[in-house]
């Protein structure tokens, strides 16, 4: 800038700044550019207005007042324009949302149904579809209901299949849910179609694959004209509904309270039947024991075994839960560690 020594020159310079400034301000398209423009126009150190103010010192004393007024007028004009432009730019700038929707919900605690109960409920739902209801019975039972009525001969090797916890000579913790078969048969005249979920007890050490108390689900169907075909048909239907399309097989077995007796396997879910460690290379997974209700059981309950026939089954939902959820140790089902339970939401 040329040296300003007269009021006229000062005024000219101020006018020129007043004239060229607005265009510069209007040209600023961003907050950064506006800050640059503000600096260049009215900045105290390096701006043009700053330079004018410095030139003020060189003017004759009598002109200083008029020159100062002129400079202030320009400054006020430009600053007003700068502020307005700033506001305009701010209005244009992309605005952050009023709330940050990435932030987490205000949650409630989520409760869970025990994994074994989940399996029982699923089994129950399938059998309900085909006319079954639910029966229950006591866990502390008489030996008659637990053994004798179910055709266990007194002091027979069949008893070795059930390591029993005794409460007294005439009281045991039931070793299976089958006593409820007898109670139900005594209480209700067929047709009977019941499912019996419940806790049963065996004298087993608490280790990764055994527990002294565990869940069992029993099924009982008694009516006139019930046969082994009904047993196979119903249980295969259950297997397809529960495990998905899968093959089943029935093997000969032995339970004192059924005759004929069988065990039902489904093709191993892990290897698809080729054989793996989980199915002990057989390609099959044991699911349940079953059979036609032994005539002695019907007779023990006062049911005419010539008129009525039936079938029954029993299975372990705990073991199914271990398979289904990939739980490696049965004790996890009992520990009640909240970090375990909350996984089953």
């Amino acid at each position: 800038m040329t040296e300003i020594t007269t009021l006229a020159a000062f005024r000219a310079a101020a006018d020129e700044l007043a004239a060229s400034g607005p265009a510069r301000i209007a040209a600023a398209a961003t907050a950064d550019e506006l800050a640059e423009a503000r600096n260049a126009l009215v900045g105290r150190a390096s701006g043009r207005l700053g330079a004018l103010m410095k030139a003020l010192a060189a003017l004759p004393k009598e002109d200083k007042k008029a020159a100062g007024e002129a400079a202030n007028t320009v400054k006020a004009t430009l600053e007003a324009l700068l502020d307005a432009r700033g506001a305009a730019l701010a209005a244009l700038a992309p605005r952050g949302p009023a709330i940050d929707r990435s932030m987490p919900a205000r949650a409630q605690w989520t409760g869970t149904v025990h994994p074994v109960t989940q399996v029982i409920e699923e089994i129950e739902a399938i059998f309900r579809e085909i006319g079954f209801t639910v029966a229950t019975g006591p866990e502390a039972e008489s030996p008659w209901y637990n053994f004798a009525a179910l055709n266990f001969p007194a002091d027979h090797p069949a008893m070795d299949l059930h390591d029993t916890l005794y409460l007294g000579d005439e009281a045991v913790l039931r070793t299976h849910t089958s006593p409820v078969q007898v109670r139900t048969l005594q209480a209700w005249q067929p047709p009977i179609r019941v499912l019996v979920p419940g806790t049963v007890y065996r004298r087993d050490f608490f280790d990764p694959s055994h527990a002294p108390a565990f869940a069992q689900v029993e099924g009982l169907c008694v009516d006139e004209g019930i046969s082994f075909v009904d047993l196979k048909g119903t249980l295969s239907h259950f297997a397809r509904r529960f495990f998905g399309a899968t093959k089943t097989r029935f093997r000969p077995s032995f339970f004192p309270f059924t005759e004929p007796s069988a065990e039902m396997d489904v093709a191993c879910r892990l290897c698809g039947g080729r054989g793996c460690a989980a199915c002990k290379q057989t390609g099959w997974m044991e699911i349940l024991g079953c059979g036609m209700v032994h005539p002695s059981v019907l007779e023990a309950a006062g049911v005419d075994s010539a008129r009525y026939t039936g079938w029954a089954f029993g299975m372990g939902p705990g073991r199914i839960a271990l398979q289904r959820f990939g739980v490696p140790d049965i004790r996890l089902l009992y520990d009640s560690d909240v970090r375990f339970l909350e996984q089953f939401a």
Partner: protein
Amino acid sequence: MHISVEWLREFCPAPLTAPQLRDLITARVATVEGMEALRTDLAPFVVARVVESGKVEGTKLSFNKVDDGSGTLLDVVCGAPNVTVGACYPFARSGTVMPDGLKIEKRKIRGHTSNGMLCSARELGLGQDADGILTLETDAAPGTPLLDVLPVGDVRLLVDVLPNRPDLLSHLGVAREVAAATRLPLGLPRALTSGTSVLVAVTVQGTGRAGGVTVTVDDAVGCPRYAGVLIRGVQVGPSPKWLAARVEATGGRSINNVVDASNYLLHAIGQPTHAFDAKRLSGDAVVVRRARAGETIVTLDGVERKLTPSMLVIADAERPVAIAGVMGGRDSEVTSRTTDLFFEVAYFAPSVVRPTRRALGLSTDASYRFERGIDRADVARALALGVQLIQAVAGGTVEGEPVDVAVAAPAPVAVRLTAARLARVLGIPVSVADAVRHLEAIGFTATAVDAVSAMVHAPSWRVDVQIEDDLIEEVARLHGYDAIPDELRPFRPGVVPDAADHVTAKRIRAALVGAGLHEAKPLPFVAGTDATHARVLNPLAEDEPHLRRSVLESLARRAEYNLSRMQGDVRLFEVGAVFTPREGSALPAERQMAGLLVMGDRRPAHFTDAKPPAFDAWDAKGLAEQLARAIAPHAAISFVAGDGDALWTVSIDGTPRGEVRAVALDAPVWASPAFGVELSIGDTPSAPIAPPGKHAWGTTPVAQSAAPAVRYRPLPTTPAAEFDLALLVPLALEAGAVEAVLRAEGGELLESLVLFDEYRGKGVPEGQRSLAWRLTFRHPDRTLRDKEIDGRRSQLLKALEKQLGVTARTA
């Protein structure tokens, strides 16, 4: 039961592989739980293919590139003349131990590295062929285990024989079923049929003589049949190889030729036998009798055992020499110095062997079979077969004649089998002729066969068959369970109503899971006292021999378990049984309970609520209300303040059902207080429904539908009027008492009454607190006037002051 496949084929020449036999036996007879190759020494060998081959100059050796499936071709030097490129051979990798014990190492031969060995049949112990390496006719990929492509050596099947089928505890028994299923003949192995002499035992009652030995049976109930023979001049020594192999195939250990012969017989035909050193039998006498009080015996396992008069023993003139059906005595054991044998084959009654085995805690191959029942009719034949086998492997001559001390056997079971029952039980028509054909294939006989029925006689070894349905099971499994269709047939729905406790448990689960609690299923055992708790007589864990009286007790231990794992937010519930001893009854009183325990944060932390409050007594009271509503929908729930940790007693329709408690835990300092609720769902009756053999149809009460009908109240059409009452209430006066007065004086227009504030401190006189209620009034037909409301307000204040001395808070 361990079944040797090779041995099985001596009884029945079924042209089936071991896996085929496994599947057949599982489908028709009994489950085969496992299959073990007995040539485990061959397990490390693999199939390998020769990819390149060249001659080592000046030798008969070849150097080869071999693919063993490892991904890297191995250099292998071989001395055999028949190495062919592209062919597969058994291969021992470096480190493999050969059947003769030699370990294959990586080494240099004539400047060529050799990383293993291609093997001949002789090197594998598979015969004498050593002319060259064994060419494998196989498509298997290199690296496949040799045993997968070369079915060599014996295979052991582990058959799960269930207690009803003792006849399957022998190779003969399993072979009989295989023969029936394959329609092939059944016979005895050559070892049992090659003898020439046919021994006939002399049948006597009570006492008899076998050569120089007097045999007396004192207890015909425990021992209805006892046969014995005296064999002199045997040479006890090692067994021939074939005999030792059979003994080992069934999981045993070869001891000497005589003992092995006895074990061979047990696993071959299922008949336990015992050989005594005849020179050790004092008085040349064998007596089958009950043990005398105070008698002891050192058994073969070297343990001295105390005998009781309930136990049956074999004794000589002085002392017991064997525990009948369980184990022999060490004094009369056959040793290398033995020359004369007294050889015993007997039928000991299950009712005697089982308690003895249990009392002694001594289960043997013999006791296992006697307990389940052996073939009583086969005793004399087994004796003859045994003598023949002993003479074949150990020599000796029979002195005198064998004796067979026996009482008359019960008549064989005869059962009528009808086509009608077959069809009724199986659901498919099976002709009597087909059924009889199946049964005859496994040794049953039939008489009076016609189109509708047959009289079927069970063979002597089928002690399990008693009734017609037993025969039907035989027919079904021989027919094949898989051949019975699995079709859904029409059915009548059941008439049994859902058990009330089950329905209630479902409502509870829904309510408490909805409230954010986790369902737990702890073990129900606790350390209690006999006076207060039902005791398990034979518990596994002696530190927890009692059954719990409380579900909350279990949940408290589970909460501590979580705290020990640094989990302070614990919200658990359980629906389960509790037990209390009952005077005059072995069966404890049993009750279904629902319990819950909460501690820690009342809700998850949130950025608007960084430190949520911990669960407190009011939360527990609220959960108790929810639980009570789930137990008894629509019932009246009431709370009475309790003492100390028992915060409230909870009643449903006026009957106390349980408590809300502050739960004392063994807890770390950082843990929040724990609160619990436990309410009774109902008693579980354990009384008999009806006497044995009887039913109680028609007497079972049919439960009424649980939910009383809800009546609709018309929605209000007039505006409500409300005002707040802030009252100064003495600390000793319960808010409930104030509410009772408000309700009584509020009249029927009082619609709701909500306690919304409690304040103590500045501005409230010492010994008092400020409680504020919001009261809402509504008239069903018209708008209430301000004057009426004001009048009501002053009336309430007057009543409060008069009845309770409570005044409005003015400050």
